[in-house]
């Protein structure tokens, strides 16, 4: 799966949790999920579950804890799928 496809799907997963919808207009691999997109940090658990279901992967807690940016999530998925 191309990185752009993964990126688009990650954004779609994040969208319901985003409390700063205007930030989605300029979202990039470097956007911080909590700080920039204003996703409630407690909801990162749900984001990871959605990623696991969408991409058919298992995300270890230690790896999930390292995800801070959209790019971190995309790279984790691409690596898991490769």
């Amino acid at each position, binding site marked *: 799966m191309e990185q752009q496809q993964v990126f688009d799907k990650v954004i779609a997963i994040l969208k*319901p949790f985003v*409390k700063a919808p205007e930030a989605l207009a300029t979202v990039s691999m470097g956007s911080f999920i909590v700080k920039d997109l204003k996703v409630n940090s407690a909801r*990162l658990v749900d984001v990871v579950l959605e990623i696991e279901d969408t991409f058919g992967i298992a995300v270890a807690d230690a790896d999930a804890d390292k995800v801070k940016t959209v790019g971190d999530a995309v790279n984790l998925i691409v690596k898991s799928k490769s």
Partner: protein
Amino acid sequence: MSERDRRVVVTGLGVVAPNAHGAASFAGALREGKSGIRFQPHLAEAGFACCVGGIPEGIEALEASYLSDEERMAMNRNMVYAAIAALDAWSDAGLTRSSAEGGDVDWGAGAIVGTGIGGIDTVVEKLAPKVDAGKVGRLGSTMVEQIMSSGNSARIAGLLGLGNQVTTNSSACNTGTEAVVDAFLRIREGRAERMLAGGSEGSSKYIWAGFDAMKVLERRHNDRPTEASRPMSATAGGFVPGSGAGLLVLESLASAEARGARIYAEVLGGYTNCGGHRMGGSMTAPNPSGVRRCIQGAVAMAGIAPEAIDAINGHLTATFADPHEIASWSAALGLPPAKMPLLHSTKSLIGHALGAAGGLECVASVLEIFHGFVHGSLNCEDLHPDLTAYADRIVHRTVERPDLQVVAKASFGFGDVNGCVIFRKFQS
């Protein structure tokens, strides 16, 4: 006037009821005698003896206009009903919400929003299946906020930016009335300027099943839903389960006047107590002495003579207890049947909404005072024989009473707990 004597008024109303959504619609439904009781196929499929109930209609279609996707995924019916009623009440009071991002906290505003059963539907439908399957890690982040008892008030605090006391009380069927009394006292004592108060209850078969098993739900009118809720009737066979939310914005008179708010009514007094499960009281039946003390406590605090009460919005659920309740009102007020206030039951229209009942019925009482009417009590044309002496005081069809001044509202709940609040038309 000391801080303890501050006057408290009602400036906003929010209603999610089986027969209406919104204060204006609810007032119209009460006046028209519109029943919200319908046949509920899912109860029949589940083997309930009672297959009728009161469930608010059309709420799913409205949710997205009140709540974000992120909020809704962490809310059950109980919380959704409470949130919509809270947002409506706040707006109805002319108050505005501060921005969730960077907005101010209103330190003078709080919420006491109770529930009787709470998020048991979330426990049964979402939590237990995954836990039992060994999939705790798949529960996600939203379980706790849906099953914690304070889930409804906590969500409201976030929606409105409340900074005063925010809590969820629970005293079974007395819950909503108790919340109004406690919020009234908090404002009266100067600890808050305005409080959302009342109760909410979801509409789940899991909430209602235990009552059906106790055989306290009506079971003989499944084919005639609007006739099923029969308070004060000789053929009353139990209560009809209801659901929804009824919330009031209570506010200090000083605050209401300072911002030019519309005032629906004044709260004159309130009282709560427990019968101690003695002298005829038990987990499921009220001690008559406790009931009478509660009513007398509210009337004494209100500083009015019993004769000044124009109408009683009773607990009156349609069980064997209705005649006992009215006898207790008569004894507590020291009034013979012929001199009693007008008697009626909002449950005849919407069923018994458990933890939401007191809130919904307080809203009904306030609307009656504001608009000048007493709504009819459905389905008691065949009055219970023990109530014959009160026949002239029981309202079957809505009566216009532009001069309506004082309405007493009481609730009595499992646990032998009681609550009573006295509302009066506002006089400046």
